[in-house]
């Protein structure tokens, strides 16, 4: 069944989009990632113009994040306070990122920069997570209790910074400086890469701030709702590239998928969840790295010239 998209100005298959939304929503609910890093490449692959794919992806991410965050809210695995501080940093970072985005697009190297960032970050994050979680799983298999990520009395330089704040839900007492910094850094990357940043946020919260894995997912989703909403409004105001019909189709699939994903995620143990996310992140990194180093199918690409 075909439907005509008013902003993308093309006809697409409804069921393909619903399925695409459902698959990404499932992963989103399970891992607490918004799914932007999956949906945007998928849409581009489906011939949706990249600018519209990025903006519309952000819009759809809101829906699956709301849906997923509500599920976590009910379970009490959502740290509002931590999410809000991260968000404050995130807004600053993504505004800066949007500026750099425009700059790179003028030079014509945006695609390259984004690809390198993706490969680099996804590769590092995925690799580290995989090693850590594999070790944890092996130890658990060996019959022992998996060592908690956070050991009492374990402190690094992060814990010596001033302006400490207590985050009850996350059982955390840290300075707001690294939290704000983390939010800003991720916001910056998110704006450039056109994603919510969940796939960096989740591991960063787990490994750098030592937030318990189950709280991380809900908190990350909560934070992504706002980052994605901000991105959607910026894009629709500045570029008019949000296709509401396309976004709605993806959302309907996405929210359904997110509930099932959250359910499955709940049944998995922390280290299993981390290992699966690591594999997913690595797979995306490999795919993008492949594109970067292997001769592309189309050596030539077309760009419309805006404002002309």
């Amino acid at each position, binding site marked *: 069944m075909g439907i005509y998209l*008013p902003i993308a100005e093309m006809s697409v298959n409804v069921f393909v989009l619903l399925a695409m939304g459902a698959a990404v929503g499932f992963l989103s609910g399970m891992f607490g990632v918004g799914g932007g890093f999956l949906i945007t490449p998928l849409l581009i692959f489906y011939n949706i113009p990249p600018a519209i794919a990025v903006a519309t992806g952000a819009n759809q991410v*809101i829906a699956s994040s709301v849906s997923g965050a*509500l599920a976590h809210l009910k379970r009490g695995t959502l740290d509002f306070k931590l999410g809000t501080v991260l968000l404050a940093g995130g807004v600053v970072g993504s505004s800066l990122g949007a500026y750099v985005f425009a700059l790179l697009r003028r030079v014509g190297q945006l695609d390259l920069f984004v690809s390198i960032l993706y490969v680099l970050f996804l590769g590092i994050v995925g690799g580290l997570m995989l090693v850590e979680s594999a070790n944890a799983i092996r130890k658990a298999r060996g019959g022992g209790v998996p060592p908690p990520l956070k050991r009492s009395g374990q402190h690094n330089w992060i814990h010596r910074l001033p302006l400490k704040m207590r985050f009850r839900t996350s059982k955390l007492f840290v300075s707001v400086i690294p939290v704000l910094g983390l939010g800003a850094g991720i916001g910056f990357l998110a704006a450039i890469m056109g994603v919510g940043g969940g796939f960096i946020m989740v591991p960063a919260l787990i490994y750098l701030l030592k937030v318990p894995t189950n709280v991380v997912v809900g908190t990350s989703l909560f934070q992504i709702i706002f980052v994605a909403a901000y991105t959607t*409004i910026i894009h*629709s105001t500045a570029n008019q590239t949000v296709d509401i019909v396309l976004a709605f189709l993806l959302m309907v699939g996405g929210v359904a998928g997110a509930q099932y994903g959250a359910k499955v995620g709940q049944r998995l143990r922390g280290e299993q969840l981390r290992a699966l996310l690591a594999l997913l992140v690595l797979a995306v990194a490999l795919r993008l790295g492949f594109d970067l180093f292997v001769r592309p199918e189309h*050596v030539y690409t077309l760009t419309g010239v805006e404002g002309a």
Partner: protein
Amino acid sequence: MRRSVLALLQAVALLAAAGGASAQAPTEGIQIGLSTDRVAITADFSGADLTIFGSLEDADPLVSRQGRYDVIVVLEGPARPVLVWRKDRVLGMWINTISEMFVNVPMSYSVSTTRMMQDITDADSYRRLSLGTNFIYLEPADKTQFPPTIDEFSSALRDLKKSTNLYNERIGGVEFLSQNLFRATVTLAPNVPVGTHRARAFLFKNGTFVKETSAPLAIVKAGFEQSIFNFSRNYGFLYGLLAVSLATLTGWLGRIVFRRD
């Protein structure tokens, strides 16, 4: 006996035709008529065939009978500047290195012909007429560039347009219904650009270009699609808020409908 009479008659007709032609010069004309000057794209649009009717004027019946009249109908989309980038291997990575700007590139270009392009006329004629997906002239912004570079980029541009079916050819899409009347079917791709298109018809006689005619055709979004599009263009901020609210609402409803815990 009867056959020889017929042949004789034909010979006489041929002479008469030749005489007539030399006396008053070839005056064949071509006309096309669109059943509508607006094509509305609605929610269920998934590409379409557009039929254009046309007729030859003062056609020579003999040439018609021999099938020596050929018609090529083109539906040309609105023109826009296009930037073509080429990727090259730098430090093992494929990155954009060289670009070439083209001005007035038709966003879409649908061709329909009576027979194979190469059987109608030669490449030089096509190039002169800027006709056909392989020969349409793409104007570079900077004409002083090295010609092979321009050729390389313009053929890349054509290939990319063809790969998304925005540039397409329909061999045999033009059919003669009678000696003078023809019907052309052109393909509208699912991603056909909206805007003012131009239907052009080219008449060839014995492989020689005779005449061209054209008619404008507006392809517009209709109803709901049009309202959404206008809203997004005129009230971008409100549209963004609407998109965010819709997403939030959908997420909340999704939670209620599909909850699994």
